């Protein structure tokens, strides 16, 4: 999940860095720019030969940069002048576009060469050259065909390759059958697609009929696909144009579920809270308190960071997240250190009064014999502990804060998405739901542990075991405090190294 926020961070950081670089050069208003040289190679594979329609489209400036077409300077371009230039250029294309069949290059012969001057901007002409090339090739047997267009390779422009089989079958080809630019006549203006720059293609030829190739494929990043799907599901829900009440409720419920599952992942001091509740003899109220604190902190933290990010695009959330991670870790470690100190004090005090403890513990058994309630006995058994344990409520809140301080990337993303769509309040609701989900998991885990502990306490002990158990019980707070401290340090270090 952290990946997505990193991506978001990288995106924001990049557009900052990028914009920062400032202007150079001037932007032209022509669809592909008036100095591009654009290439299209349409392959047609037959059992006995390969045909290639190669189209080269020179925009206005390259047209001006070429040697003059009007060689006899009579003010008009004759068919002969155009034909000679087309022949020259097609000979160069034939040399520049290399097609190999199983590694051996084909020898092109030029069947047709045509030059036209479609009008461009400002009364200037562009140049369109169409070359029909053919070469014999043995494609009746399975073969590998590779095309590489090296003609005017350093020019900037659109580069497109298509391939069809005529009497042969093309398999495993990533190259489309049809030209998306209608052979350089109309360049698609899809804002989400980079200008095409395909210079080479590999085709597997099989005997038989049936065209090959595939539709135009978009380059899709493989990073974080699993998360992308979950995110897509959720964000699509949030981004729907017609957001009905049902969908809204569903989205909030989904947010609760996502929050609950997020809290199940390790880290963020959740283990610490559970361990603390166990070691410090927490009550059900304590468990609920932790849950409430986590929800409040997490919601405030996501809203705060979301607000800052949406107001200032210069902020990289990564840094803030790392900072919060360190803060959360230090908070936990600090609480751990404090607990450790008090636990050690209590333990030392405990060793000196070992005999009374045993007596009390024995009394515990007797109470049970007389049908007294367990809770009471438990109270006695650890009576001198409770006096110290009560200070722990502040520490509990602290742990809850630490647990909710680092915003979940999903929640942040959903909030930013909702703000972007002008549905800020809906986003706030989702974040609240997310925090509630997290809190539910943490509280449930705490209650589960309390229940487990109570069940253990209900079990009767032999005197010998009871003595050992009492020593163990006396040591438990020290161990858990140590655990809290170590995990806190671990969280802080992780936050630091992540910077």
């Amino acid at each position: 999940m952290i990946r997505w926020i990193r991506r978001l961070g990288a995106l924001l950081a990049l557009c900052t860095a990028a914009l920062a670089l400032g202007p150079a050069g001037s932007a032209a208003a022509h669809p592909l720019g008036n100095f591009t040289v654009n290439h299209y190679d349409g392959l047609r594979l037959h059992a006995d030969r390969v045909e290639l329609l190669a189209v080269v489209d020179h925009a206005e400036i390259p047209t001006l940069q070429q040697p003059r077409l009007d060689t006899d300077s009579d003010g008009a371009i004759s068919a002969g002048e155009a034909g000679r230039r087309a022949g020259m250029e097609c000979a160069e294309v034939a040399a520049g576009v290399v097609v190999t069949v199983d590694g051996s290059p084909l020898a092109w012969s030029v069947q047709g060469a045509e030059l036209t001057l479609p009008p461009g901007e400002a009364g200037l002409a562009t140049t369109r050259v169409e070359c029909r090339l053919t070469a014999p090739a043995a494609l009746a047997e399975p073969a590998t065909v590779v095309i590489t267009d090296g003609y005017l390779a350093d020019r900037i422009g659109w580069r497109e390759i298509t391939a069809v089989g005529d009497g042969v079958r093309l398999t495993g080809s990533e190259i489309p059958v049809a030209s998306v630019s209608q052979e350089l006549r109309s360049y698609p203006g899809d804002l989400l697609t980079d200008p095409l720059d395909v210079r080479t293609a590999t085709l597997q030829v099989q005997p038989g009929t049936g065209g090959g190739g595939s539709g135009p494929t978009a380059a899709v990043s493989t990073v974080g696909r699993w998360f992308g799907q979950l995110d897509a599901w959720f964000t699509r829900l949030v981004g729907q144009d017609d957001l009905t009440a049902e969908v809204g409720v569903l989205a909030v419920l989904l947010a609760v579920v996502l929050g609950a599952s997020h809290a199940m992942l390790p880290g963020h001091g959740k283990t610490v809270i559970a361990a603390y509740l166990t070691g410090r003899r927490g009550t059900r109220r304590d468990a609920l308190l932790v849950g409430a604190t986590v929800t409040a902190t997490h919601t405030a933290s996501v809203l705060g960071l979301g607000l800052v990010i949406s107001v200032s695009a210069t902020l990289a959330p990564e840094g803030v997240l790392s900072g919060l991670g360190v803060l959360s870790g230090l908070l936990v470690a600090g609480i751990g250190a404090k607990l450790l100190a008090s636990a050690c004090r209590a333990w030392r005090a405990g060793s000196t009064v070992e005999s009374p403890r045993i007596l009390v513990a024995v009394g515990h058994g007797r109470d049970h014999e007389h049908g007294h309630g367990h809770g009471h006995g438990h109270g006695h058994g650890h009576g001198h502990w409770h006096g110290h344990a009560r200070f722990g409520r502040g520490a509990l809140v602290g742990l809850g804060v630490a647990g909710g301080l680092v915003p979940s990337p999903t929640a942040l993303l959903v909030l930013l998405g909702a703000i972007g769509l002008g549905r800020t309040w809906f986003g706030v609701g989702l974040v609240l739901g997310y925090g509630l989900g997290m809190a539910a998991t943490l509280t449930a885990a705490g209650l589960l542990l309390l229940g487990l502990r109570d069940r253990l306490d209900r079990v009767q002990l032999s005197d010998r075991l009871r003595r050992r158990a009492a020593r163990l019980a006396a040591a438990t707070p020290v161990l858990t405090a140590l655990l809290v401290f170590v995990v806190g340090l671990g969280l802080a270090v992780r936050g630091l190294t992540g910077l």
Partner: protein
Amino acid sequence: MASTAHLDTAPSRPGRLLLVAALAVLLLVSVIAAGLDDSNRETPAGTPQPVPDRLAATIAQAQERLRRVPGDAGTWAALGSAYVVQARVSGNPAYYAQAQGALDRSTQLQPTGNAAAAVGLGALANARHDFAVARGYAEQALAGNPASMEANGVLADAATQLGDTTTATAAVQRMLELRPGVAAFTRASYELELHGRVDEARVALERALGAATSRDELAFCQYYLGELAWGGGGVEQARAHYERGLAAAPGDPALLHGRAKVLAAAGRVDEAITAYDRLTQRVPLPQYLLEYGELLESAGRLPDALSQYRLLGEQQRLHAAQGSADDVTAALLAADHGDPAEAVRLAEAEWSRRQSIFSAEALAWALHAAGRDAEALPLIEQAGALGRRDATVDYRRGMILARLGPARTGEAIAALDEALATNPHFSPLHASIARRTLETLRGAG
């Protein structure tokens, strides 16, 4: 009692142990999870290594996200801004049209308070040399968020070109305070250079280089370090910077231009001509075409030079038809290789739009070409008023003074000497004119 107790305790011991074991497992899991997360972190986010194609990756991510969430105005704005940079880095102007489309989409989705789109549109306007419009967008973005790094960047670039140095300096200062990185240091360096504080400019660029994390940033910093060295006549240092930049970004047009300039300065004229030819075939920017023509002219290939000047003229006409006029280059071309009256007309049009040191210099040179040197002198002095050390400005001042009679000959000689001392290779054509003029002036004096 004992027997019951004994029986009942049987599960308790493993129970307690279970609890301790569970705690140990929890601890272990957290530690392992932390470790796993750490190892994950090192691979994608290791900062010191230059990232080769972060821009392309960002664009792909934004595109992918917008296919899923087409209504996300913020990502449309980010994509548009990334396209503006891609147009510059790749030299492919098709990305400018993409940028315009993406930024328009963002504005449609969120017409008010869309600072990110305003910043992108401002950067695009700067790229199109439409500096007044760029400034408007920057101010619009800054009204919403005065601490925006990118908006201050757009404002600094536009204000510098518009001749408003106070605003430019303030914007750069804010950038340095907000985040002292590549963006702030490179701009600060340019500000310092324009004020003649070359050493400080170099320090700023070296700090920018230190802060650069991607290949395009490295190339960008090396290019400006090269330009700074070139401006001071340090041909060998400039060459080293350009080559280092090209090692990071092999096809970068600006760095290839640097390489071609260095070849010409080193006297390797044929190689320089080949380099300029390939560069202008690929990216025929007006400045490159003009320099190429002058290189050809200085090498005695006047017909070839004239065809470059003609091409440049057609290109100016094309740009004017598209509404993006670069009158400074057009005026300089007309002044040196065409019609002086036309040069004055173009330069005056530019001067009426923005009174920057660049338009002052162009107008002065056009007036000089038209024989109006007395009017040219205050303008060329204004062009150098900030204190920048620029061989071309000194050369032009010297040439203007040389025409103002014997009383100014001493000053003319000083200015031309200064030009050649600053950068003896400032132009293959004009450096030799400067030397010839100096001989004549000294001969007369």
